[in-house]
């Protein structure tokens, strides 16, 4: 299986704090990879390095390489704006734009590139909302404010918005931690459907979630990548003792 994203000796810092330490990981294409680990282990920071969101924080820096289809996203000639259109992100707390309608939220990314053809935009809205399993619920209220829907629906709106710019990778940072079990289930289902077309990386503190939906799982601890492999193997016969301890709930 091809690898969509490969990191080479990736280190990330918040000022003096060394949050990600020499991580080498290979994210397979068209599959769901989960990154698990206790709070503060650096998993969110790791994926934020993949779409160059880490450097947005003042004092943050990155060393090492992150190869997207073989090209280093941290190459000096690479524009972070471009990277982020290829690698989309959904955040822990749903953050739709409150001053925009559902429709406008979905096409927000497209409008940046000057897309004005409303027929095209209409098509994208329908397609993205369907991919995010939200179309049927909101198709009659596309004009409603982006925050007038429930939390779970807002998160799916954010997914639709991220998908509308047609990224190749979708990064999700604990997307269900603010949602109830039913909303969580809906999102897990749609991720499963998405993996045919997209490479998905999901950070989760919920091991059961990783076990449910992920093809591959990575376990991180204190900024280091401890183990990576097929989910089944990680959960049933992990190689490292630390992994086993975490899986069986001895800590974290």
């Amino acid at each position, binding site marked *: 299986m091809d690898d969509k994203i490969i990191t080479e000796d990736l280190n990330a810092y918040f000022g003096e704090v060394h949050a990600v330490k020499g991580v080498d990981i290979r994210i397979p294409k068209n599959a769901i990879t989960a990154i698990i680990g206790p709070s503060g282990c650096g998993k969110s920071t790791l994926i934020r390095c993949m779409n160059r*969101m880490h450097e947005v924080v003042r004092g943050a820096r990155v060393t090492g390489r992150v190869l997207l289809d073989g090209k280093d996203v941290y190459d000096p000639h690479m524009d972070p704006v*471009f990277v*982020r259109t290829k690698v989309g*992100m959904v955040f822990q707390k749903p953050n739709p734009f409150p001053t925009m309608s559902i429709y406008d939220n979905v096409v*927000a990314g497209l409008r*940046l590139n000057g897309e004005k053809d409303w027929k095209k935009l209409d098509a994208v809205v329908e397609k993205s909302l369907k991919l995010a399993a939200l179309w049927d619920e909101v198709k009659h209220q596309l004009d409603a404010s982006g925050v007038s829907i429930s939390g779970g629906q807002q998160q799916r709106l954010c997914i639709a918005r991220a998908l509308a*710019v047609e990224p190749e990778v979708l990064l999700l940072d604990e997307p269900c931690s603010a949602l109830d079990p039913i909303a969580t289930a809906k999102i897990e289902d749609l991720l499963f459907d998405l993996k045919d077309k997209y490479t998905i990386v999901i950070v989760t503190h919920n091991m059961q979630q990783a076990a449910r939906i992920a093809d591959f799982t990575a376990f991180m601890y204190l900024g280091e990548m401890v183990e990576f492999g097929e989910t089944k193997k990680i959960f049933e016969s992990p190689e490292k003792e630390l992994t086993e301890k975490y899986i069986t709930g001895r800590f974290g």
Partner: protein
Amino acid sequence: MRGNEKGTSVLRGKPLSFGGDLVFRYSVMVVATLTLALVWLLVIMMVIDASSSIDTFGLGFVTGDVWDPNRDVYGALPFIFGTLLTTGIALIIGVPLSIGIAVYLSELAPPYLRGPLSFVVELLAAVPSVIYGLWAMYALRPVIVGTVEPFLSDILGWTPLFAGDSVGLDKFTAGIILAIMIIPTIASVSKEAMMAVPDSQREAALSLGATRYETTRMAVLTYARSGIFGATILGLGRAVGETMAVAMTIGNANVISWSLLDPGQTMASLIANNWGEAQDLQLSALIEMGLVLFVVALVVNVFARLMVGRFMKAVPSTGGGL
């Protein structure tokens, strides 16, 4: 410990201090009400003092366009007009500059610069109005007369707004100095409104592949727009009531004229410029003018406060004198 069990009110269980508390509470309340009551009392007194003018001109005061002490005829229209024009210029120039400043301070400035730069911008509000006027007279005016106004005359002299020549003591100069004076207000309140936009909004825009500029437009300015609007209204309120700098630069002409290059007069500057020699009916008319100004300022300021809400404390209340 006494009186602390399960929510027993400490106040109720102690007869000795109950009286003290009551006295304290009510005396403080009386003082607080005092200012309010006093202000309203004074307003009534102002109305009484303006009564002869009110009786003479009635509603025609507001629509009358003649102000002639020689004939004892007084109308407020030229000054409402002058206020509108100068305030208009001030806002047209001041608001974009202020938003630019606010965007820089909130989104672009490195953290070590943000504090000092904000302070310096607010220092603009600390300069007393009369010093602004003095500076405008001798430093700003030559620049305007020498460069800006000939330029405007050349290009726009065919429009009624820029017709005629000028010596620099006109509504345009007054408008410019007003713009400078309202910038600290609009900029600091707008900055607070922008800084209150949660980072998650910016992250959402950035992750879609937006540049910093696009992020600011899409996520920050829209989210903060009611705060920014309120800031503008606050600036408007300030411009309306600004007296000294305007009085010193506007040219003291009590007539309506459309050209910005002609001298004029605002409601506030009228009172300042004519107070010295005013007697009887003219004095009463000036006080009535003050009442009109009071009403306008009240309406604008109340509206602004309602819009700005929790960013109230960002307003530099140390504005150096109006």
